[in-house]
């Protein structure tokens, strides 16, 4: 924990008033930032300055600031969630940057994630995919005892690996095709691994993929960038599972 002070940082930020505005970069200088400060705290400090100067602060999405809610986004210096591995933007710290460095900050970009303002994007396309089939159709009550159906350790672990998706959209943002396959496959394979979810696996795969296609995401070309930038390290083996589930479902149709 050797704290240092970065005397000057140049922040080049995408500013866009609303969805229909064309947008442009603006450049700001921030002084005296501790390396123990998080990247978003640095933006807080910049915003505080901007408000004091009577300017409009930079709008960005953030909430839990501990890497689990998936609200924060940002494409920083060319990478989704910035220059560090297995983290969300809120877990990125200023120790990853150098004195005097120019940091380029852009919103997640995809046709299906339109910019709302500045760095804030609309990820409701993910919601729509889940509404289409990202669930097990059980009502509250009337379910069997939790231990009634044994689930193997490996299946539970594999399901958990896939289920740890936080829906941040980094996979789409980093994919050169803006494909949502990692997101969709994580949900499909989480539920397909469990006996509770198997029952309607075919219907789920069909419904989710068709909704995904409808919403204008690109096609997966297996570059694997998504799994590298995924803050939770979700494997693209899930995409193979999704492909398999989908083919099975279509053959059975």
């Amino acid at each position: 924990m050797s704290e240092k002070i970065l005397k000057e940082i140049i922040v080049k930020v995408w500013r866009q008033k609303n969805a229909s505005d064309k947008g442009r970069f603006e450049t700001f200088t921030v002084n005296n930032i501790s390396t123990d400060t998080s990247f978003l705290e640095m933006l807080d400090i910049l915003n505080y300055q901007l408000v004091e100067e009577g300017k409009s602060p930079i709008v960005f999405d953030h909430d839990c600031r501990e890497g689990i809610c998936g609200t924060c986004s940002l494409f920083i210096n060319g990478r989704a969630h910035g220059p560090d591995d297995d983290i969300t933007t809120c877990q990125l710290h200023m120790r990853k940057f150098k004195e005097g460095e120019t940091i380029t900050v852009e919103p997640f970009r995809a046709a299906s994630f339109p910019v709302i303002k500045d760095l804030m994007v609309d990820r409701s396309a993910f919601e729509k995919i889940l509404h289409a089939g990202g669930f097990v159709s059980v009502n509250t009550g009337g379910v069997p005892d939790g231990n009634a159906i044994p689930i193997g350790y490996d299946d539970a672990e594999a399901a958990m690996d896939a289920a740890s998706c936080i829906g941040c959209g980094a996979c789409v943002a980093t994919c050169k095709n803006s494909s949502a396959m990692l997101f969709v496959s994580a949900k499909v394979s989480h539920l397909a691994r469990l006996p509770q979810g198997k029952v309607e696996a075919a219907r789920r795969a069909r419904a989710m993929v068709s909704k995904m296609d409808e919403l204008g995401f690109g096609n997966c070309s297996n570059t694997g960038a998504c799994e590298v930038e995924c803050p939770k390290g979700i494997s693209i083996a899930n995409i193979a599972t999704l492909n398999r589930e989908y083919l099975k479902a279509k053959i059975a149709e």
Partner: protein
Amino acid sequence: MTVLNSHIPEGPLADKWSKHKQKIKVVSPANKRKLEVIVVGTGLAGASAAASLAELGYQVKAFCYQDSPRRAHSIAAQGGINASKNYQNDNDSVYRLFYDTIKGGDYRAREANVYRLAEVSGSIIDQCVAQGVPFAREYGGNLANRSFGGVLVSRTFYARGQTGQQLLIGAYSALNRQIGKGTVQMFPRHEMLDLVKIDGKARGIIARDMVSGEIKRYGAHAVVIASGGYGNVFFLSTNAMGCNAGAAWQVYKRGAFMSNPCFVQIHPTCIPVHGDQQSKLTLMSESLRNDGRIWVPKKKEDAEKLQKGLIKANDIPEEDRDFYLERRYPAYGNLVPRDVASRAAKERCDAGFGVNNTGLAVYLDFKYAIERLGRDVIEARYGNLFQMYEKITDADPYKEPMMIYPAIHYSMGGTWVDYNLMTNIPGLYAIGEANFSDHGANRLGASALMQGLADGYFVLPYTIGNYLADEIQVPKTDTNAQEFAEAEKAVTDRLNKLMAIKGTKPTDYFHKKLGKIMWDYVGMSRNEAGLKKAIELIAEVKTEFWKDLLVPGEQNEVNQELEKAGRVADFIELADVMARDALARNESCGGHFREESVSEEGEAQRNDEIGTYVSAWEYKGENQEPVMHKETLVFENVELTQRSYK
């Protein structure tokens, strides 16, 4: 007792809920379709309630300030969820879970509510499994359990260090299913800004569309508040940045009582504050205390050297380490309840034994566990937490001990509700962390998830029928009614007022200032003089806020500063009631520690002669002192004893 009727059913404790369910009214399916319910907040409680109510046939409108229900802060809960399944054959039972919760809450919760919570806890696990929640499993395929602070059995179900996330995704997927069917209308990026009452009954809300800035009216036959806790009143807390007391505060101002606001939980294992650029605190799961040993140096000169950075933890020899929890509480050791562990850390740091540059940190050391179990085992158990710690602090907890310090975490207090979870406003309900009902003065680990889901899946869907059965003749609420117009105007006026101050200071300035007052005087240790001072200081902040606030931008666009300003305005008012509540409660209990009420050994001293009540604060108007009503707590099934973890 004239104002507050808790509607606790008669009869033996174990029969109360089942008898009550038999007696309360039920709405026919045909009528349910005509009834509308608004749910504000979509964390565990809100999402589970919205989904369950929609499954029953009600028309539900759900609101959250996040861009998706999945982001509610329930998601950040790490450790687990309790249930009295007794899968481990360790003599767990509904009664034992009930007893542990009542005792852990320092006897400041309602027996009947807590017993019901314990009773439905098992069904929650079944429900979550059926939804596809990937709980940890044994090799044989059965559900695994772990132990948690303050109890002697293993009843905590978990999904790695992400239990809250997985349970929320379960509830969220149930909600998604209903949204897909059209039975729930979801309003993300919407913030509730007022409650609308018609003829004394809750009939709707006013909400701001956080993208367009539009102020909109929504009507219903009942309104459910599931908006979580108010920990952010302290500025620095483990809550998410957006967590706010807005909904709770608006219903308070519309006449709902606020209960036990001074009961907040301070979690002992958080990453210490690093400096004044910090925006929030990060919790490290309580489960770490299963294997980590907490210590500070025995010698003050060692502590001073640590503070100056001259030596490191590993330079201090074994015999010079003070494992103060093991020393003071040999029976529970490092697993004492959260309030006890937090106070003990503060005591050592106040005495000058803190171990970081601010002097406000203690060590949580895994060296001993690694020696005993091997690095692999520790990595399997806590790998993700260690990684998280390293990302934040840039220190390797496998090699040097973690540094931790207590931080504000959970609000036990909240909107007053009766046994049916209805507030004193007919048709207005409060569930989950937003209500006060189940945790008394201190919440046990892994119980928040349990309560949120119990309320949403298994309590509210039953009890709300009892009210709505009498509303079946009432037509759809007309949002053109005068009451809606008035409420909308009040909301717009307030927003305009915030925008119009055009002072010199951003909202965060006031929030930080308020947070410091709260932490210093209404934090882990409280006394009469300090609380009185806090009330004065809070009033000063309020005056300054309304004079010198600067909100840039416009009302009719995304304006995060405006959102924050409204929330901080609420926090300032809430802070005042918290301080008053703390002042009125002249005893130490759970998270509430009054320096005037300690035993000879310096331990917190509860006073059951004066303390067995639930406070319920009534709003009396702008700049008027609120009035406290008391609901007396009656204990028929447990004997009140001084908690001892020695």
